[in-house]
């Protein structure tokens, strides 16, 4: 294996879990998450040792994952119904409060892809609205609007426990 491949391999090994995590939180399906990440990494590989290369490979791959998820969902069906976890390849998650987190996980399934992407980037990646806007290719105001709608949708879910709806 040449030096550029070794460098790329190191990048994948170091970042694959984080990238898979983002993809899984978006898709809620482990197989789809792997497909998204693999596709994004292949695109990164093809650019890795060409010209100036990729300045921020982590952001580059994550951006592809997020936008492929959003555009892929749009392409599949505009009338696609929110799904429960039953038909997805799920992972078992240890939890401090299994019922509460299961309710939240299911509630996340009713969000639109862009709404879910905003919440995942904000609460899992810890991104600012500006950074989220950069990933989604939209304005910061759009990010805030999507977040507001996502919160409203989550609060409207009957399965979400009361404690999660409280504000302090």
């Amino acid at each position, binding site marked *: 294996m040449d030096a550029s491949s070794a460098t790329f391999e190191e990048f994948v090994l170091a970042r694959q879990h984080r990238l898979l995590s983002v993809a899984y939180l978006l898709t809620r399906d482990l197989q789809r998450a792997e497909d998204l990440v693999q596709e994004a990494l292949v695109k990164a590989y093809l650019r890795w040792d060409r010209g100036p290369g990729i300045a921020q490979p982590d952001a580059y791959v994550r951006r592809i994952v997020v936008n492929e998820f959003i555009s892929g969902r749009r392409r599949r069906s505009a009338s696609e119904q929110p799904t429960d976890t039953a038909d997805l390849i799920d992972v078992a998650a240890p939890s401090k409060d299994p019922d509460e987190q299961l309710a939240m996980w299911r509630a996340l399934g009713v969000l639109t892809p862009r709404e879910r992407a905003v919440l995942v980037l904000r609460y*899992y990646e810890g991104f600012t609205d500006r950074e989220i806007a950069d990933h989604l290719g939209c304005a910061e105001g759009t990010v805030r609007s999507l977040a507001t709608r996502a919160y409203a949708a989550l609060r409207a879910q009957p399965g979400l426990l009361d404690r999660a709806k409280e504000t302090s």
Partner: protein
Amino acid sequence: MNSLDQVLRETLQERAAAIPVPADLTSRVIAEGRRRARRSAVALTGLAAVAVLGVGITAAAVVAGGGLPATVSPGGATGAPAPHEHEPLVTTGECAGLTVTFGDASQGDPANPPPVPDDVQALRAGDGNRVQMARQDLKWLRASGPCADRLILRTPGELVFGNQSRFADGVLGQADRVAVLFTNTGSDGTDTFELGLWAWCGTDSDCSGLVPLATVTVDVIGTTDLPSGAVVTSTP
């Protein structure tokens, strides 16, 4: 932080922590990347052959006819280079400097492109671009500069077609991308194609988030005894 935020954060973190990582992801990615790189090289060889064929046909026409056929221009148009030649399509924002040029098949060998072809001109933002093609013609669109990898080609009409929606990656190196535009019609007419940017759009995506940058009117005139080089851009 309210409780909703807290439960949301905990849920995402704990779900993510439980994800297994496939042991062979790296090798799968590299194998697929190498396969696509080989496939891309084969495809580009084919495209280059088409371009070379176009040059050969033109050369034969020149020999048989004793000279280059006259260029057919639409009314009021001129094939002379415009003063804004090779000015960027985008002049502000993160994509400032993105340039798209339009040229003949004779300029289209992606393996050995001339640095600044004389008869290739830049397209500009808006709907003021007008170009000419023959009925069985082939021309190249070449994108360079920032955001070239986000450039999308749309050919919604019936006379002008593109070889792909995305500009091909890796044709001319990191900063340059190429798309092929061709006509396949038995009669003259007018059609359009569009160039736009999309935040990120996979090769099979519907690209419905496309933001158009330029709409180009194509006058399809005459038979294919040339690449004419008659690229006409109207004044603002």
